[in-house]
């Protein structure tokens, strides 16, 4: 998701570009089972007798370079790790503890680029635990809770933990899933999450001491509370294809952000956003032999954001109602070629998207507002090659190109027109 905001599903076979490989079935001795129960699942000691643990691990370490409008950035590294000791206590209960983390020492073409920092360094860490109750009629009920932190060093003067847009997420949710066959399921989920920006305080709330503050200006203007509902599934298509439809709705509340009116003043009403998102992803085997397989995929995505917040540009003395609302349409195609018993893989992805704002007016190069509404077009292509070198290990090479364009010509504070490129080389590991 960059500013295109469409979400890539982590399919069970293909999260990351490397094959996950076999999972090892572990039978723990009684002492270790007891320890595991005490440490992680103390609430369910009776399950300890038969606990099975399936580790799921994915890791990547890549190094490369990023280009922005033909200017190259310094070499940087990307590293990611997700690890879960999936625990099955019996046919009814299982637990999914998960850690996932990323370090980004260089940008990728799908990252936020137009904000204009050539120097970027970030890391994020998320831990979560999900309890799953399985029923004999193919239904599963799940409860999940977790916590995440994202740290950013976007400029030369920011240190770890001091980034302006560092954020913390706390989340919990429930989910029902009916899995009537392998790769065929339907699920409905409700998630609640809060996003806090601990280092962000609105400037105007800090200006009270100078006599320049505004009434109703709260410091934590970016913090949000989110209620999200998701319906998704995976069903079979003709010709051995499969379809993954997803619909989600999110109600986002800004409890510290008041609306601005056409006089440029804040009024005593809080901002609320509603986000609807639909994704349809189809995948078909195009050519399948034992050691040569080609799969093609097509994804259509639509996102609509609706907000009651407006915008007042004090510099231009211009009131822009319905400034934040937009609709995004995107199309993506993926082609994956696998060759060999322990296959090497070549994947090609191409994506185009248009984000059209409902009321955000275009600006010319000097900032003057026009009558058209702003749209932002983006496209990217990427190639990924991975080759197995040992059990679970692959060498990887990936190259990507991205383009952004818009009918908004004002680039003094945000770049609407640019092209980027990235190449990365490294290793991946899956267990």
């Amino acid at each position, binding site marked *: 998701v960059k500013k295109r905001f469409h979400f890539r599903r982590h399919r069970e076979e293909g999260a990351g570009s490397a094959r996950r490989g076999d999972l090892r079935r572990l039978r723990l001795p009684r002492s270790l089972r007891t320890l595991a129960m005490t440490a992680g699942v103390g609430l369910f000691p009776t399950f300890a007798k038969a606990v099975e643990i399936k580790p799921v691990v994915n890791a990547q370490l890549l190094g490369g370079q990023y280009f922005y409008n033909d200017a190259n950035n310094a070499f940087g590294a990307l590293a990611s790790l997700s690890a879960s000791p999936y625990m099955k206590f019996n046919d009814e209960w299982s637990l999914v503890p998960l850690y996932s983390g990323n370090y980004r020492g260089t940008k990728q073409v799908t990252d936020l680029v137009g904000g204009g920092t050539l120097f970027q360094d970030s890391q994020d860490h998320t831990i979560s635990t999900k309890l799953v109750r399985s029923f004999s009629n193919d239904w599963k009920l799940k409860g999940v809770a977790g916590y995440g932190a994202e740290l950013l060093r976007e400029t030369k003067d920011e240190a770890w933990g001091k980034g302006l847009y560092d954020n913390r997420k706390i989340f919990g949710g429930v989910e029902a899933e009916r899995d009537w066959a392998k790769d065929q399921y339907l699920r409905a989920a409700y998630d609640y999450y809060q996003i806090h920006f601990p280092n962000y305080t609105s*400037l105007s709330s800090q200006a009270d001491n100078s006599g320049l503050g505004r009434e109703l200006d709260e410091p934590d203007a970016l913090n949000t509370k989110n209620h999200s509902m998701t319906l998704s599934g995976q069903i079979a298509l003709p010709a051995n294809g499969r379809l993954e439809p997803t619909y989600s709705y*999110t109600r986002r509340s800004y409890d510290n952000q008041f609306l601005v009116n056409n006089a440029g003043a804040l009024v005593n009403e809080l901002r609320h956003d509603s986000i609807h998102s639909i994704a349809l992803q189809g995948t078909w085997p195009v050519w399948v032999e*034992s050691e040569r397989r080609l799969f093609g995929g097509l994804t259509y995505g639509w996102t609509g954001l609706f907000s009651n917040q407006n915008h007042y540009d004090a510099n231009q003395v211009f009131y822009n109602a319905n400034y934040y609302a937009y609709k995004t349409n995107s199309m993506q195609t993926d082609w994956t070629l696998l060759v060999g018993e322990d296959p090497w893989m070549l994947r090609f992805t191409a994506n185009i998207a248009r984000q059209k704002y409902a009321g955000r007016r275009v600006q010319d190069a000097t900032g003057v507002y026009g009558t058209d509404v702003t749209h932002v077009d983006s496209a990217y292509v990427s190639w990924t090659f991975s080759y197995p070198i040992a059990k679970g290990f692959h060498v990887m090479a990936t190259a990507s190109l991205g383009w952004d364009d818009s009918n908004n010509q004002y680039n003094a504070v945000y770049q609407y027109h640019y092209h980027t490129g990235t190449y990365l080389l490294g290793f991946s590991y899956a267990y």
Partner: protein
Amino acid sequence: MAVRGALALAVLACVTAFGIAAPATVQRVSGVVERRAPGMLEWQAVSPGDKIDEGSTIRTQANASAELRTPRGHQFQLRANTSLELTSIQDDETKTRLESGRVVSKVKHLKGEERFLIQTPTAVCAVRGTEFETSSSDHGTTVAVYKGIVGVSAMGSGAEMALTAGQMVNVHDGTIEIPHPIPPQSKNAADSALARTARHEVGLDMTRNEVMAAAAQEQRLAEYQEGKSLIDVEGKRVRLDEYILRPRPDTYKFVVLNQRDTRFDYFYYQGTFNKNLPTDLSVALRNLPGTVGTAPDYYLTGYETGQSNTQDSVHDTATGGHLVKIVSDGQGNYVLSDPADPTNTHTVAAATLQTDGTYKLYNPLTDSYTIATAAQKDAVSKLSVYIPENDSYRDLAPTDTAWRTRFNTYTHQLDNVTKIAYSQSGLTNVLATNLDASYTYAGGFVLPVTKTDPLTLDTTITNYYGDGTFEMYRTVFIDDLGKIAPQSAFEGLSTGASFKNELLKWNYEQQVSASEFHGRKIDLVVEPKIFIKSGLIQ
């Protein structure tokens, strides 16, 4: 986990004709591959070309593989850690038993009643001209079909399921799961139901994490698009917020706030107008720089600007604001008049040749003088005026009537110390300050010195005062990355409408230092429009 069911054998389509046993041939060997003849206990190494008799078992070790071909032309590709017994190698029947591991079978078109079977501890696969892969482990059997059709049945069950090309299925505990497409990057061996479930659940959690990360990034994107986070000339983040306040019905205040890691700077401009302001401020503010043609409805009667780093300050105030009408007499002079007092008028020469050959040029819009050489005279004489209809600037034409606001008093202070001030010298409104006002300077005079970088738009103006103090303004025009605008971007423009229109494409950073600040400075990044409109940028 409960284990269900007994295992049984189900058989499929086939045969009748009675065939003759003949050995299979080893086509290819990689790594350690061994065979055990029927009734024997010891294992022997296998080489390409070896014959494997009916009833023999062939096995591969870790990282090994082998390929066999039967006299009928059927092929078996054995993967690592695989054990396969050649139960029957007849013209009319090829039957094997896969104890463990993975085998890809490439089956020739079957003749008549010919049968091709692979049996595992949990399943039987019967084939009708096909290419398929079978894997067997403690968790059951997985069959993936690449070409043709394979009939699959669970041990102990008579029911057979026909699996077509592109499909795979898992057989375990006496049951056959519903077939599904062969997924990308599938690895059949040991791909147990538990492993798939674990990956499925982890995948769902990772998707949730991505959604939340996208939400946080979207909020960050909005901040960037609204210009609330920029990079200054030193590569540091500078947060920017601009908004307006309305302290009184006839007054508005424009506020710019900057924050960096260790500092907070602000600028404000408060204007008091001749009448109450409308809801849509732009109606009044488009008159702020003055008008061309008709007199403006709104004009300032006073203003106040301030810049501060919360410790030091630059403070300017003006009072007694009134309109001045400016016309050209067509003879090289500007005629300035007071619409409220027709007797109050001045005629000022646009250019005066001085004894050193330079020209003293009068700008009636800014009420200031500039010294220019003969070569510079025409360019410097171009005066830009703001055109509110299209929110841009154009050069003033000789036939234009311009309207500007003048003030009767003005004070410029640093840390509350007055450095420059003027007040009207008579009873009439000030039309031109050098004619109608009395100036005072700290120490009696001020000497401005300008230093300009030859390559970039980086200019420093230092005012030296008669009392030995100074104030210094460094102004740079930067893009959103903090990169200073090159002189080439302005193509030699230094004044006039084109210059101002180009300035609007850049961000403006001004660093102020002064004797009174004792080494500290005020450092502000703003979008430049308000500075141009308010006359701080000439």
